[in-house]
């Protein structure tokens, strides 16, 4: 995809979403906002998992760090929520760098288990540090704007999503992105050609965590209640399912996955928590039969049609 084409498509979608507050009711606006939140989450997870092959289970945890840092600063220390969001992003980035460096010498399952452990530890701390976090009750936090309105939040999340997508697009189409993919394909070969594997992996972790922190912080101030549900494994597996079903390692895949799954889960809400189970199963089937997700299926179909026409 050429740069111009990318920005044109991005602009078109921005225009389309900007119209949504004029045509959608509050409930549907809420669905759009949640879709945008998951787009930010899935796209940034795809950056480490899809582009550098580090399947981290701590992505929801970093969103939680963003949400709680910003929430506590705003609710307890009287910071402006916007400043809180900024500090939340930095906190997520710093912890992301820490976890990334800790996992540098690990690959595959060991990295996944370590990040899973980190995620659970964080979850336990948040649930137990009642004084700061109000545990499972959830921490009430102020909103980002004085007069709460879904339309305003739609624009805020649209801006957040645009920032996230542009950062990721720029990154994967730069030299850094080439290094990301080299490291994912073969670390040893990459190192032998001069790629600083340590730096590449740590950088991916830091940026991806910062973007998760941004998504989480905004989300907390939207819900006005920060609960341990944000940094939960449920959330993590939902983001994973979205990325895998949409198409891991492709730019558009996680976006498609986020929208399809979030809209679907609104429809099958009546069946309670079983939807996560269903998504997990579909993700498994996808990973087995179409590792490149829905995007991969579409591309294969297109190639098939072309081949049939020729």
């Amino acid at each position, binding site marked *: 995809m050429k740069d111009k084409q990318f920005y044109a498509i991005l602009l078109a979608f921005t225009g389309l979403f900007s119209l949504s507050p004029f045509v959608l009711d509050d409930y549907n606006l809420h669905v759009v906002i949640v879709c945008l939140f998951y787009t930010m989450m899935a796209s940034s997870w795809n950056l480490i998992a899809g582009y550098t092959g580090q399947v981290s289970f701590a992505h929801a945890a970093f969103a939680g760090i963003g949400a709680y840092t910003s929430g506590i600063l705003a609710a307890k220390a009287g910071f402006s929520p916007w400043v809180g969001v900024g500090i939340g992003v930095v906190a997520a980035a710093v912890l992301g760098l820490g976890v990334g460096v800790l996992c540098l010498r690990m690959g595959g399952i060991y990295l996944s288990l370590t990040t899973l452990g980190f995620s659970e530890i964080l979850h336990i701390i948040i649930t137990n540090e009642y004084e700061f976090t109000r545990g499972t009750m959830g921490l009430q936090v102020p909103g980002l704007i004085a007069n709460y309105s879904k339309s305003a939040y739609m624009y805020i999340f649209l801006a957040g999503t645009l920032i996230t997508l542009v950062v990721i697009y720029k990154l994967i189409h730069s030299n850094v992105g*080439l290094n990301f993919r080299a490291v994912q394909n073969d670390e040893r070969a990459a*190192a032998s050609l001069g790629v600083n594997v340590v730096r590449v992996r740590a950088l991916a972790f830091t940026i991806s965590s910062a973007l998760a922190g941004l998504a989480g912080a905004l989300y907390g101030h939207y819900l006005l209640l920060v609960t341990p549900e944000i940094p939960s494994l449920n959330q993590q597996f939902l983001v994973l399912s979205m990325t895998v079903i949409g198409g891991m390692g492709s730019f558009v895949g996680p976006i498609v996955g986020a929208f399809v799954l979030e809209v679907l889960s609104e429809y099958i809400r009546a069946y309670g928590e079983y939807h996560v189970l269903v998504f997990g199963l579909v993700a498994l089937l996808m990973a087995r039969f179409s590792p490149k997700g829905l995007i991969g299926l579409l591309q294969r179909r297109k190639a098939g049609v072309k081949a049939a026409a020729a």
Partner: protein
Amino acid sequence: MALLEGYDISKRFGGVRALKDVDFTLEQGEIVGLIGPNGAGKTTLFNVIAGAFRPTSGRVIFDGEDITGHTANRTCRQGIARTFQVTRPFLEMTCLENVGVSVINSPRQTAHGGWQEQALEVLDYVGLLSNETTLANGLNLIDKKKLEMARALATKPEVLLLDEVLAGLNPQEILQAVELIKKLRDNFGLTIFWIEHVMGAIMSAADSVIVLDQGANLMEGPPAQVVSDPRVIKAYLGE
């Protein structure tokens, strides 16, 4: 002055001594063959030089600087490139991108043009230009070897470590590859350290040959002298 030297290099893996006090010297612009029976420690020596393994003891000197224990990527940036015995292309990337990785990480690139132009030049040089947009996954063995070579060259090295680049090629292709290797030395002044089992190729291209046996130096000298030496014949064929 010698460009690349090793002194008393030893490498232990648990109880196995893979290298025992190995010495070597490469002059600038030389092609030096490294031969020996299977398990002699040839690839281990390359791994030590290229920074994939830290030696248990001993030193590697490159251009007067002690580079012992430098990481693989640092060694490469300093000017020592290698190829792997079993090729390791980035399978999910195009040939152009494969070579591009070398270009963008090398501190010695020429200023003009983006990495694409420079990578194209190198692909052209090894004869892979028509495969520019092919995924490395789809290449046959010979083209994978060419790609491996192209990636090493694109780092703009001073020393090239070649690990059995001719294995699996037919006689015609071997001739072409040997010509390419000679050209690298003649046109770019590259210094080449070359593990090879195809003796004819070593005989025709190498200035001198180092023989390893069971992890230790056995002998070294001009190719003709080495292959007729009774110790070398004994190492390969037994009594």
